[in-house]
């Protein structure tokens, strides 16, 4: 099986991405314009990831029951919990409780 080239390819490639601006390339050489927008990148990636979790699970094959509507409802409640409490744990509990409730009802 030719699995090793793929495994090493993705692993080494990902390490180079991680190391890029941390140690291989001087961040001072990153253009100022790029540096200015970088703080927005995590928010954008998280927003897209969230949309993709409604569109289809990131973890393909890990999808349990609970259709898109139950997931949307759970995300909305979790969002309110996150806004008010700023606590990861409360957000997790609120979202899971909502998902289970909506799944049981539908």
């Amino acid at each position, binding site marked *: 099986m030719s699995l090793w080239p793929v495994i090493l390819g993705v*692993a080494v490639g990902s390490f180079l991405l991680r190391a*890029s601006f941390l140690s291989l390339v001087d961040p001072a050489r990153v253009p100022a314009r790029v540096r200015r927008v*970088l703080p927005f990148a995590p928010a954008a990636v998280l927003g897209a990831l969230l949309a993709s979790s409604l569109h289809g699970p990131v973890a393909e094959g890990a999808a349990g029951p609970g259709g898109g509507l139950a997931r949307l409802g759970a995300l909305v409640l979790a969002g309110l919990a996150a806004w008010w409490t700023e606590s990861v744990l409360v957000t997790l509990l609120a979202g899971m409780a909502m998902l289970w409730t909506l799944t049981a009802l539908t």
Partner: protein
Amino acid sequence: MSTPRTAFRAGARAILPFLVGVVVFGSVAGSSARDLGLSALQSATLAGLLFAGAAELVTLDLLARGAPLLVVVATALIVNARLALYAAALSPHMTGLSGGQRLGLAAFVTDQPFVLTWRGFATPLPSAARAAYFLGAALPMWITWQAAHLAGFAYGARLPAQLSLDFALPLTFVAVLVPRLRERGPRTAALVAAGLYPVCAGLPLQLGLCAAAGAGVLVSALRGGEPRA
């Protein structure tokens, strides 16, 4: 939390709630690796060196469909392209570290420790404490991922599907993102990216995520607003 030791502890405390999702995701990835016929060493290499759940699941999915080597590697690296953004955002904060230390730190760059550190940097910390905070969050995360991945490989994901525990992952994204939406820049970036994702989802090579996120960054940059470095 000004000394490295207290910063490390603060990072470790902050990552704790995230580990629930890591356990679930890691065991799913481990059992998927086994289903595909990877050896224990191959599975452990993915867990330890790749150390990126979404990219790993994409890799395994494409391998299972018999995609050619170059397509698999390229797609996984596109999914992981955000890690370069994280590295660039972390870099100015990791001053006073040797080249070797920065290289070592790089191995642990991944979503949750980064977003935590990103949030933590809202309050100024001395640079030594920043690296310690990041490592305090990243190290427990790495160890948990290895353990969950191994357990998933050995026992399969025995967690009942009825619980939908995979949903813990997007919930952790909500927990991190929503408090940041009070600021205009991140809010624009997140809303544009989320709104565009359904349009971009059809793009080939899993480019949808990158395209939507890129558009979000672009629009928020054009609108201006005060970024927080």
